[in-house]
């Protein structure tokens, strides 16, 4: 996946959902926890690897083949279904880590970066839920 690549994503890909989710983080307070760190987030499933480049709390580029800075790179590994549940707000990173559904091989060395991502994901999930409630009050009430 690149900025200039219009080709449709393969079946089972999380790239569109990941780009849409993380692309929205910069437009809300959710980007604040990420702002101190120039994180290169690598999302790895059995089928694909995505690189999401986050700068000042904003996703600036999404490129599967991008070079990552090992010092600031954070890799998260899960099935596509788990990642999609995170983007849909069904699971938080804390939920997924606790259940063993998500792993981060460098978590212990980069706990600060992993937590920054987790806090941003939670805040963005909550912002999206609030937005859905505002736009569809009936659905919002059911979700509560």
């Amino acid at each position: 996946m690149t900025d200039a690549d219009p080709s449709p994503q393969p079946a089972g890909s999380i790239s569109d959902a990941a780009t849409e989710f993380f692309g929205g983080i910069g437009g809300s307070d959710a980007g604040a926890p990420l702002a101190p760190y120039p994180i290169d987030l690598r999302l790895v499933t059995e089928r694909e690897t995505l690189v999401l480049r986050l700068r000042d709390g904003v996703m600036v580029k999404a490129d599967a083949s991008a070079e990552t800075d090992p010092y600031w790179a954070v890799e998260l590994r899960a099935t596509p279904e788990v990642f999609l549940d995170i983007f849909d707000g069904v699971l938080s990173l804390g939920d997924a880590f606790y259940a063993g559904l998500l792993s981060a091989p460098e978590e212990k060395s980069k706990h600060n970066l992993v937590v920054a991502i987790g806090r941003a994901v939670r805040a963005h999930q909550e912002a999206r839920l609030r937005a859905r409630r505002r736009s569809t009050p009936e659905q919002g009430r059911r979700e509560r």
Partner: protein
Amino acid sequence: MISGALPALPGAANCVRLGNVQPGEEVLILAEPGTDRVVIEALSICARLAGARVNVLFKEPSPVNEPLSPVLGAAIRAADILFNLSYPTSHSHAGFLASFDHGTRSLTVRPDAAVLASPAAMFPLELFFELGKRSQALVRGAASVRVSDERGTDFRVSPIPGSVGAYIGALPYEPGLAVPGYIGTFPPGTTVWGDLNYSANGTLVLDAVYQYVAPSEPVTWTVTEGWVTSIAGGPEADEVSALVAPHRNGNRFAECGFGLNPKIATPHSVPSGTAGSAAVLSWTRRAGTFFVGMGGNTLMGGRDRSNVLPVYGLIRRPTVTVGDVVIIRDGRFTWLDDPDADLLAHADRVGGAHWLQAER
């Protein structure tokens, strides 16, 4: 009340500094009935002096594998920092949410006024961070770590570099003052790593385990490709076996590492129950010891979840060789016994070389 807390105040101030408490923050002190009031008071005073608002919550003691109450979970999530005087909460579901999703900083504090008044609690944080930074880098760069002792321990593990921590501060790979999501203990601390690649193999003859600082006979774990496949010894070994056996992944070799604080004293009393667990956990922070943990490893970055919170064990006088560097020889941390000029300079900046000398 303050006069009773006076001896504990320097240690409490060091604890509050490690927690990086800031003006306007919400501090949660979690205690149990019977917790030493002096510890609560000393931490409260220091946190208030840092400009934070202090909340104290008493919980009933509960089995270590029982989920936290929703009230307690909500309180932990809402706090900026938790000073936990009870059993560590960080391995629970509520603890994961607090750390990873809400950024609550968490320090499990030894609930003992005498410890808070001891040199262990006043150990200079900058020296701890320097020892942690050096030793973490050493382990990350080593192909394997070997542990042996005169009682029959012979153990090897090959850490994945990224699985080595902890106490990571503002920068990756480097211990520092607490940042959001921080998980640590006080007095500090350790260098620790998970066995994410199932490389742990060998025999561990433990001098202390679970709640027992002095089991009636050594407890021997046999580790095979990342799993504790045998637990042998006296009644304490039987108790640990019974604790983990019913639970999926209960016998996973979850973590190991070594203490960095030369001022942690070897326990002289023989507490039991929660106090025994706290004593064993604290002892693992002593420089010169090697510790192991069995149970779920998801907090270490792994995917083997278990209802079993880590059961810790400790080797008192190990020899630990990281790559080709003997970092601990017969229970003596070699960097502290024979410090280089850089470490001596660090010690000089925080009060002198006496901070490098081990407490008995």
